[in-house]
């Protein structure tokens, strides 16, 4: 009797399957095409661009149409117009070689293309700087900083940063890092709602570095509407049953146009990993 029972048990359990994934055919509506704006402007010459592309249907390959011959103009709070021109070699990318964002100014973007007008506003604040920036093994950090990341092994190579946030609330930060010229696609953003006037720091998680890698760090400030945009962009790209109800990121462009416009003040640093 016991043997019989064991046999049944094994057979029955062998039949039960646990979760499985499968690609399925799921028809989706095709929304009408819209213009997407990536307007990244900064205080560093040559590091400002406005990229215009179009949306495409979900099931097509990722070949996004670029928007050419658009009129792209930024007006600053002094009323000065800056016209961006399409690059000859990169369709849909508009630049202006000597353009620089200045602290504490408001900038207005106006894009005109195929009869459609998209506008946006962004506020620049101040140029941030690191109190401390380090790339190397954990053991090379000062003692008190090592304690805060106790769970990592000593030889783990990381990028550790510290900066001080000025007192009034309303500052937002972002770090974009490049390892050997390859861009790290993780999103590092922070605001000062819980830590205003204090020192903020941490490591760039998800960035794997080896000894002698060359790391470029772009550290910049942005306004509240840009923080809201990138924060909700992260929610949009994470999927699965425990993700938030999906929605388009909170836009700072007119009529909830897709994309963003940012006037950033940047500090760039290059260092070699120890």
């Amino acid at each position, binding site marked *: 009797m016991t043997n019989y029972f064991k046999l049944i*048990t094994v057979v*029955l359990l*062998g*039949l*039960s*399957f*646990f*979760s*499985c*994934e*499968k*690609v*399925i055919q*799921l028809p*989706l*509506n*095709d*929304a009408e*095409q*819209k213009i*997407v704006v990536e307007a990244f402007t900064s205080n560093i010459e040559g590091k400002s661009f406005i990229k215009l*592309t*179009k*949306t*495409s*249907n*979900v*099931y*097509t*390959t*990722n070949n*996004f149409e670029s928007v050419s011959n658009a009129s792209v103009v930024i007006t600053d709070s002094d009323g000065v117009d800056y016209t961006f021109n399409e690059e000859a070699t990169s369709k849909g990318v508009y630049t202006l070689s000597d353009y620089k964002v200045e602290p504490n100014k408001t900038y207005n973007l106006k894009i005109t293309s195929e009869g459609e007008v998209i506008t946006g506003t962004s506020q620049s604040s101040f140029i941030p700087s690191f109190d401390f920036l380090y790339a190397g093994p954990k053991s090379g950090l000062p003692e008190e900083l090592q*304690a*805060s*990341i*106790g*769970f990592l092994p000593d030889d783990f190579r990381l990028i550790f940063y510290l900066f001080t946030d000025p007192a009034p*609330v309303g500052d937002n930060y972002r770090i974009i890092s490049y390892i050997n010229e390859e861009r790290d*696609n993780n999103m590092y953003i922070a605001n000062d*709602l819980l830590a205003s006037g204090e020192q903020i720091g941490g490591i760039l998680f998800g960035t794997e570095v080896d000894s002698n890698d060359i790391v470029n760090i772009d550290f910049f400030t942005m306004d*509240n509407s840009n923080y809201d945009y990138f*924060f*909700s*962009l992260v*929610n*949009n*790209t994470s*999927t*699965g*049953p*425990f*993700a*938030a*109800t*999906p*929605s*388009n*990121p909170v836009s700072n462009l007119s009529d909830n146009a*897709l*994309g963003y416009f940012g006037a950033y003040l940047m500090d760039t640093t290059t260092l070699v990993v120890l």
Partner: protein
Amino acid sequence: MKSLLTLALFLFSFISFGQNFTISGNIKDNETGEDIIGARIMVKEIEGKGALSNVYGFYSLTLPKGNYTIEYQFVGYTTQSFSVILDKDIKKNVEILPQTEMLGAVDVTGEKLGDNLKTTEMGVEKISVKDVESIPVLFGEKDILKTMQLLPGVKSAGEGNSGFYVRGGGADQNLILLDEAPVYNASHLLGFFSVFNSDALKDVKLYKGGAPAEFGGRLSSVMDIKMKEGNSKRISASGGIGLISSRLTLEAPIVKNKGSFILSGRRTYVDQFLRFSKNENLDGAGLYFYDFNAKANYRISDKDRVFISGYVGRDQFKFGSQLQFDWGNITSTARWNHIYNSKLFGNATFIFSKYNYVIGIGEGINKVEIGSQIQDFNFKKDFDYYLNSNNTIKFGANIIHHTFEPGDINIGDGLGFTIDDIPVKHSVESALYLSNDQKIGNRLNLTYGLRYSNFTQIGPGETYSFDQEGNVDSISYFSTNEKIISYNGFSPRLGINFVLNEKSSLKGGYSRTYQFMHLISNSTSSTPTDIWLPSSPIIKPQIADQYSIGYFRNFRKNTIEFSAEAYYKDFQNVIDYRDGAEITLNPNVEAELVFGIGRAYGLELLAKKRVGKFTGWVSYTISKTESKINEINNNQWFSVKQDRTHDISIVAMYKLNERLNFSTSWVYYTGNAVTFPSGKYIIEGQVVNEFTERNGYRMPDYHRLDFGVTLNNKKTKLVLDVDSGKEIEVQKKFESSWNLSVYNAYGRENAYSITFRENEITGETEAVKLALFKFIPSLTYNFKF
């Protein structure tokens, strides 16, 4: 308050003058001593006069002086009649005998099985311990709560999700009461098992809206669960040992016929079998749950009876030593019944209830623990006043103190950062109610009542007000017990039943309910991590008005019941989240909320066959639920997540012979409303989904077949009779059976979630479906003695 007084005076104007006497007492099961809820006490000589026993088995019937034959009836029991000379108030306790077999030799009379036509109750589904004999078996157990989901208007939240939806309402809109204590989390283990061992339950009643005035606080339903008291005549035990879970229930008298207790427990050991799974990720995973009920009662005197009960249930999930997640409920109740006189029955209850969860990530000094909890202390006093044979009045008061701890965060010392706990919130919810169940003539039955409720948020605590951008612009501080804000309202309730003829009746109803506690969940599936928040200066109480109408008709001598019910619900102060809201560990989560209105309407059809070798039911619901909120979907009506257009359940049980019976159920429902992309674009080299409307798509349809077969071991044995020298058949004391059941018999991979990703090879976007379970068999050995 004035309207409450007016109502009271109106009711008391019905007091008749003349020589009336009352017969009252307690009605119990002859074999176990359990009180019988809802038994019918009829008078043979006067048609249409009768009474129903209350939830403690107490009944009271007032009649003019005279000689009567009183009949005591309940489905599944043999009717008993007694002759009484009613020339003074009489106390009569009765014990009725359960019928042994429902097959063939059953006295099927119109009255017994036509109960559904007589009450004003509509929008109610009821399952009592006798009905349990005829419900399908899932995983070797007869699960009353799971069976409820097979009835019209009640929808399961789906695989992997706990909770259920009633008439389009959210999972937080159901008030689940176990012996009057609120239970916040309705299911274990990814939604498979309900949190109660059905062996310990006596009666489960689900009000789908239009609950009488004694209930309040949730908009969509009240699930009133009564535990058994425990066999007060002899020791008895029942249980089962199965592949996935095992359970045991033990009942015994404390003093025979005066007091008894019941202990009941259950545990799964699914984690032991995860080791056999082909999925490598599941190695080192642990997943189990347990629940335990204990209850004792004692009759102190002729008029007094005390009860004490407790429940603890917990789910534990762990993944190696790095991730643990456990959640569960604890409740305890102390009650005292007192019979003031032959017409007035009272009950006082004191309740403690706690629901919490803890998530642990990492270990040792580097561990992060996040917990959330809600704790209630509750005192209630309820009266049943049997004014006369045409009026039964109920009134009472209720006061609850809630403590909400939305986020208790402990960060290990090794981690070097801290996060503040989210502030604790306190509130007091109280209510007064008065209602009457009145018979007018032979055909019309009315239930009407009024409930007055108040909700006050009190200190210690702080409240925030927010500016346009959602940043805090001012904070107010409150000291202990200082009032922060108070809401109150009247909820009228009305139910009408008009008996058209002996085969059919027409019912209608209206009710208004308030809900002061809200479940905040921003994920597409419900998880135990959703947090409960009280009403506050920013979150107003939700209000629902429900109108319903129904037609009930029985066929073939009441052996086939048919009903059609239609409802319309209006919601105010519906809560949702602004696009891109962040609710995890956010102390200012109220800034992420947006408010609007909602509506739900539907038609529920049910046909049920209750007697014979072949029993079962077919239910079909067609419905719609939608919300309209300024900040979402351009202020256009949009479907809520749990809006399911079609919902079909077919349940069939077939008793082949005394030893073998089969049960099967098939469910089908339209998928949840969900938001899928309608386009895509590129930002910073990453593909981003474009969404054009909220909940504009549907998940694929869900359907599933469950099948089970039960083999009963012989119920009788041959014993040599000493006197006659012959062998006679005697009932065995120890009953046992084997059950084999299959969940999802044809292995349909129903979608749990659908995500979009780029194919690694072709670079094209593809839709990926995640399904949780294919067929799951289970084998259980059940016993009873």
